[in-house]
């Protein structure tokens, strides 16, 4: 089992308590002593709310959040630091209100972040399952489990967390891996060398494929992509990655699938000959004719199994059993039969595949990248690749230090990634 996945999977489970220390704790080195004790005993801490007295008479105070891997260790640390004045913050239980109507949250509902979150119920801290940003928190009737829930899925009478009391967000721990995801920076620059970043991604994907084959948790690699992958010439590399078992979930729109199959049927992408690179007469109709053929045969799956579509991304997904969620947009042609045109339903279908994702590659699509990014917990390492720096920047601004942005062309990225994973060039 690789270490970072362990760190991710335990991120929700680590034990923590906030303590408060006040007085002349700086010059007396009492704060230093308490922090040293925490570290020496094997805990970690975050310093929050440090206030240093402005005059000698004015006292200082600090709030320290202690994290440990076990309850026993946490108790031991608390016991050791209490004589030095560290008092445990008395926290209240979270407040709960019932949803007033279907699809309507109570006033003052708690809005989630994408960071691991816990609520305090009956004096105990409970992990929020399926955390995602900008949702509410639903608590079951027994008060034994809680999960994030989108506004639209709330039913009248659901128990929803309101206010901020008794809710705490657990800062991400730095992954133990010393790779690109372990640095507290989101690299979004066209000027930086990409080679080592792609090499780190390849290493993770190789490990995740092994874990996936052993059916281990959080081993799925998700790719969300746009049609530029096809236009730019990344189709073969992505097909190879899927066939080799490196990609386990695909999110895309009508266009990526249509142009992928257009390439198979007509050798063009949006009418341009992929090999010759010239506009083919009436080529602009090819994607429409492709969509029409698939609609006629009934589904992409039938098109592949019947032999009509022989190669490419869609064919690889069908053969490898890779689930594909195709979300529609307002400018779609057709669309293809599998495209989900109700965006709420599409979001739901995407959300259903998020648990188990251990790496997300968001490639050449503002729409699908941002939509997918919003669904991902901060604990999932995420790579965003786009020629337009604003897309990785938008993703990096989500505040997760496991998001890496690469400003580069999709085809170059996928080809380089596939090469590093053993594809002959």
């Amino acid at each position, binding site marked *: 089992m690789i270490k970072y996945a362990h760190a991710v999977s335990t991120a929700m489970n680590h034990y923590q308590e906030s303590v408060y220390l006040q007085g002349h704790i700086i010059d007396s080195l*009492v704060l230093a002593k308490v922090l040293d004790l925490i570290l020496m005993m094997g805990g970690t801490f975050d310093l929050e709310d440090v206030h240093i007295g402005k005059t000698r008479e004015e006292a200082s105070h600090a709030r320290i959040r202690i994290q440990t891997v076990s309850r026993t260790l946490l108790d031991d640390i608390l016991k050791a630091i209490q004589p030095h004045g560290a008092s445990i913050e008395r926290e209240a239980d979270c407040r709960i209100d019932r949803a007033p109507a279907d699809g309507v949250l109570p006033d003052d509902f708690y809005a989630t972040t994408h960071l691991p979150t816990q609520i305090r119920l009956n004096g105990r801290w409970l992990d929020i399952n399926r955390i995602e940003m900008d949702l509410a928190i639903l608590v079951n009737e027994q008060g034994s489990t809680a999960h994030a829930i989108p506004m639209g899925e709330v039913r009248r009478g659901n128990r929803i967390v309101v206010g901020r009391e008794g809710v705490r967000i657990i800062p991400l721990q730095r992954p133990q891996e010393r790779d690109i995801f372990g640095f507290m920076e989101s690299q979004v620059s066209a000027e930086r060398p990409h080679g080592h970043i792609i090499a780190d991604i390849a290493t993770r994907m190789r490990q995740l494929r092994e874990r996936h084959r052993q059916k281990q948790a959080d081993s799925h690699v998700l790719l969300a992509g746009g049609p530029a992958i096809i236009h730019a010439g990344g189709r073969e590399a992505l097909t190879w990655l899927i066939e080799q078992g490196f990609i386990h979930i695909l999110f895309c729109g009508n266009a990526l699938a249509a142009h992928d199959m257009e390439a198979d049927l007509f050798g063009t992408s949006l009418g341009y000959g992929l090999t010759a690179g010239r506009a083919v007469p009436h080529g602009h109709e090819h994607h429409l004719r492709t969509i029409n053929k698939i609609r006629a045969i009934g589904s992409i799956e039938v098109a592949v199994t019947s032999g009509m579509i022989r190669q490419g991304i869609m064919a690889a997904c069908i053969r490898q059993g890779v689930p594909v969620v195709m979300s529609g947009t307002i400018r779609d042609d057709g669309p293809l039969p599998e495209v989900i045109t109700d965006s709420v339903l599409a979001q739901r279908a995407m959300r259903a595949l998020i648990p188990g994702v251990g790496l997300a590659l968001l490639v050449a699509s503002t729409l699908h990248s941002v939509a997918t990014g919003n669904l991902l917990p901060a604990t999932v390492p995420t790579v965003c690749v786009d020629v337009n720096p604003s897309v990785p920047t938008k993703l990096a601004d989500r505040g997760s230090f496991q998001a890496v942005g690469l400003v580069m062309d999709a085809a170059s990225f996928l080809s380089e990634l596939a090469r590093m994973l053993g594809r002959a060039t």
Partner: protein
Amino acid sequence: MSRILVCPPDFFGIEYEINPWMRLTNHVDHGRAVRQWHELIRVLEQDLGVMLERMTPIPGLPDLVFTANAGIVVGRTAVVSRFRYPERQREEVHFEGWFSRHGYEVMTIEAGIHFEGAGDLLGFPEYWFGGYRQRSDIRVFPILSERFHREIIPLELVDSRFYHLDTCFCPLSGGELLYFPAAFDSYGQTAIAERVPDKLRLTVPIDEALKFACNAVCVGKHVVLPAGCPATQAWLRIRGYETHPVQLDEFMRSGGSAKCLTLTLD
């Protein structure tokens, strides 16, 4: 003129064991203890010209003689101790009574926070040091600091033989400090060194520290200290202090000496 609170040792003895010095088997020569106490009183009154206030001793409270632990007095406010051990908690009401009868505004610390008075709170005019862990609770210092607008630097006491700050730490009127570093951990030693320059600090040798050389009473340029501490005395004289050694070994059987037997009132 300095005023100091004392309590005659009429009922002094060892009736329990609450520090490593006390042994029920360790017999106190009561007559000798009384003579030693009176010699201390004579030095304070006659040699130092201190005005003494005498408490009435109470039968069954052998440690009432150690008035340093009555509380602390700042101006007209007295903060009464809250002893850690039940054996001494019975003294609290008597100290509180004395303070209120003598016109002090009495401040009490909330229950559950131990504080053993001037035994654990000493300092210079500008800032104080607070001993904690053995007897007093560190949580008392922010409360007192806020009340009296003084910085209080907490120091953890790590050697149970030096169970009160005044057993190993003695600030002097000229800004000097007598202390025994090994009674503190490295954090405390660093904190002390940061505040008191090298040349003003005397590290008391261990044999004198164990005779409670630091349990001294400083009044102006006079220092009253237990007998048998020549190195400490020599250093004090170099610093311009007149030293007054007093034999107080009967009180050492209980873990107290000159400073423990006094409480500076103003």
